[in-house]
């Protein structure tokens, strides 16, 4: 079941990414407002506004993408599929519409079409991690269907469960967690994306090149024009963060062995302990304790105030009756004594949702205590 909620998390994620990434200055505010309505669950209003927005700009990719998202959230799946399909036809170089098409196909059990859409998404954007993850899930689902046929297993029951999980996911899924990644991604892309979009229909090659430069992938970045890459780096809020966990551990650099003040633990151990305590607070649905792990300068997703974010978290944490979270596969890296990044596998289970995600937290040490500055899905 996890994989489907992850798919939907990914839908929301790439939605936000695209929405905020592709905004051109003139219409940015309007689209952001519509995005807020969508997140607030005010789908009808969001749809009305986005339709009005599109009436004067029928070709506008951002608006059409957002409209697709609203329709998806409204469970108007075939209309959403139609919206994203036409977007892929007009903007074949954008990976997100393919990805979201795949999510919708997968939700309908059309895994073969989901596979094709995701492969297309990856073709247009070879380092698009979300599409890879989704594609892995779709392969696994297709494989299990093939195995069921091979071994004459009755998969009817599991399919039924999938459907139920999806319906709940639309209103109560781990979207919060996934959506938190949006600010990072949005800003990473904002450097190049608006220009991309404006050119996309006319110059697909330029679009592909520019969007490659905007990814987290080191190789793609290296391939992109130096200036573009530099721009992205400069604009990114924590330039070292996205790549840090992997490159540090892969290069075999030992974590700083600075001693903590009390228990004689390394800072690396202190970071992991902090994550564990944060997980326990979340798990026990102690919202105040949970929020206390976040730094004063923690940035919620773009356009959201700290108060709105806290309210949203409170609601989501208290919605399920029971939450079980486990975390493992920690990778900790440091950029200075007081700045750490930890990525780990987060296994979240409630009676509403199950998901397994890789999560990365950026922490800052203030007065000997590690606090979360940034939270995002993915390594």
């Amino acid at each position, binding site marked *: 079941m996890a994989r489907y909620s992850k798919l939907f998390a990914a839908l929301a994620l790439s939605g936000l990414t695209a929405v905020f990434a592709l905004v051109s200055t003139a219409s940015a505010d309007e689209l952001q407002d519509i995005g807020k309505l969508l997140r607030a669950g005010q789908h009808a209003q969001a749809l009305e506004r986005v339709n009005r927005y599109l009436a004067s700009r029928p070709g506008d990719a951002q608006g059409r993408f957002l409209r697709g998202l609203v329709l998806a959230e409204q469970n108007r799946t075939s209309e959403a599929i139609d919206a994203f399909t036409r977007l892929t036809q007009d903007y074949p170089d954008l990976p997100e519409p393919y990805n979201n098409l795949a999510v919708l196909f997968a939700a309908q059990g059309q895994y073969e079409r989901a596979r094709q859409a995701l492969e297309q998404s990856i073709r247009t954007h070879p380092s698009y991690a979300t599409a*890879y*993850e989704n*594609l*892995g899930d779709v*392969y*696994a689902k*297709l*494989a*299990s*269907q*093939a*195995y069921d*046929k*091979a*071994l*004459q*297993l009755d998969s009817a029951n599991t399919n039924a469960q999938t459907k139920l999980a999806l319906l709940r996911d639309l209103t109560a899924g781990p979207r919060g967690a996934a959506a938190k990644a949006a600010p990072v991604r949005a800003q990473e892309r904002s450097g190049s994306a608006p220009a991309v979009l404006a050119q996309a229909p006319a110059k697909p090659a330029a679009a592909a090149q520019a969007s490659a430069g905007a990814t987290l992938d080191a190789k793609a970045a290296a391939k992109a024009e130096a200036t573009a890459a530099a721009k992205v780096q400069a604009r990114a809020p924590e330039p070292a963060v996205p790549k840090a966990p992997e490159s540090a551990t892969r290069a075999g650099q030992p974590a700083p062995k600075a001693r903590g003040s009390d228990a004689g633990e390394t800072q690396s151990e202190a970071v992991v302990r902090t994550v564990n305590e944060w997980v326990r607070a979340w798990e026990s649905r102690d919202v105040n304790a949970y929020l206390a792990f976040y730094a004063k300068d923690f940035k919620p997703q773009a356009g959201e105030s700290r108060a709105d974010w806290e309210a949203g978290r409170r609601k989501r944490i208290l919605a399920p009756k029971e939450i079980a979270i486990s975390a493992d596969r920690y990778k900790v890296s440091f950029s200075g004594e007081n700045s750490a990044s930890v990525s780990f596998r987060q296994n979240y289970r409630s009676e509403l949702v199950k998901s397994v995600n890789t999560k990365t937290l950026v922490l800052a040490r203030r007065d000997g205590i590690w606090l979360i500055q940034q939270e995002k899905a993915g390594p």
Partner: protein
Amino acid sequence: MGRAPLALGLAVIAALTLGGPGSSTARISPGRTQKETAEVMLQKAVAEMGSKKFDATLGEIDSLIRAQPNFRLAHLVRGDLLMARVRPLEKIGAGARAPVQRLSDLRDEAAARLRAARERPPQGRIPKYLLQMPSEARYAIVVDTSRSRLYLYRNDGGLPRLAGDYYVSSGKAGAVKTREGDQKTPIGVYHVVSSLPRQKLLDLYGAGAFPINYPNEWDRRMGRNGYGIWLHGTPSDTYSRPPRASDGCVVLTNADLEALAPNFQVGLTPVIISENVDWISDEEWRSDRKEFIDAFERWRLDWESRDTERYLSHYSHRFATKKEDLAQWRRSKQRVNVSRAWIKVGVSDLSVFRDPGSENMMVVEFQQDYRSSALANVMKKRQYWLREGGRWRIVYEGAA
């Protein structure tokens, strides 16, 4: 989601199943070249799994599944192909969660079908059983239960030539049937005794059935019992069954059964079932054949000589017909030989098959044209010859 482990996993599967690079695959048997069989498509797809042509391989498997939607092994391979994109797989079906038996059944079928691509019948060699096919029989069937394979041999003027080979299932409990209900496939020399069309059969038996004459005279002599050993097809919801699946019958896919059916001649087509087929060279075949046919010819001539002792030297002390033992046989032959002025024995349409159950046994059939000063009689005869102390001797003789 790295790509490297995927490719690795696929390569491992291909190596495990195909014996690594250099193994021959997907060769089509003579006579079946018109269109690719499902098995050849499967073999190709598995061979390609080690390559990086994911889309092409998936396309092949998909067209195979379109052609044979009930080919469960093809679905399993499709699952593996996809699952190997997610994580490395160490063997076929490793990504599936399923009852162990069902999975191992499919793995066994995969092993048998892929082995068939790897180990082709040696070119220019002949199964050592087919020493002399009956002149009217267009084909002979040779079944190998350990390889789960049926070989179709065309009678090319007495020389057997491979005309096709097919995956088959056999008895759940293996081979060498001795008792009713032992779920084993008999080993020996048999022939097709009737043909049952689909309309007369339960769905279990598929597109048709060809009963064989188990237990034959030697089986009965050995005290073996049971009945109803058929070559037959598969149920309509099943493309093929695991290698060990039947109660002793030899089971073909419906497609293969339908392809073979026109070649079966009721009362004639030999069905030789072996646990492990041996092939011999053309020279060995000729020398084996000559050695036996010479012995047979001496028996015929010694019968014509009316010298009872010379004649009886061709009979084993274990000899018996359905009614008589050697002593009774001796008495009746002595009586006949003294009362006849002359005896002529004509032999035509001779067939000679080595029994796979015993190296030292030949199963022989022929048209016997017996004439003497008192009687003329034409009959079809069957003999079992056993090699004892370096000589071929008859252990059973009777009307076929």
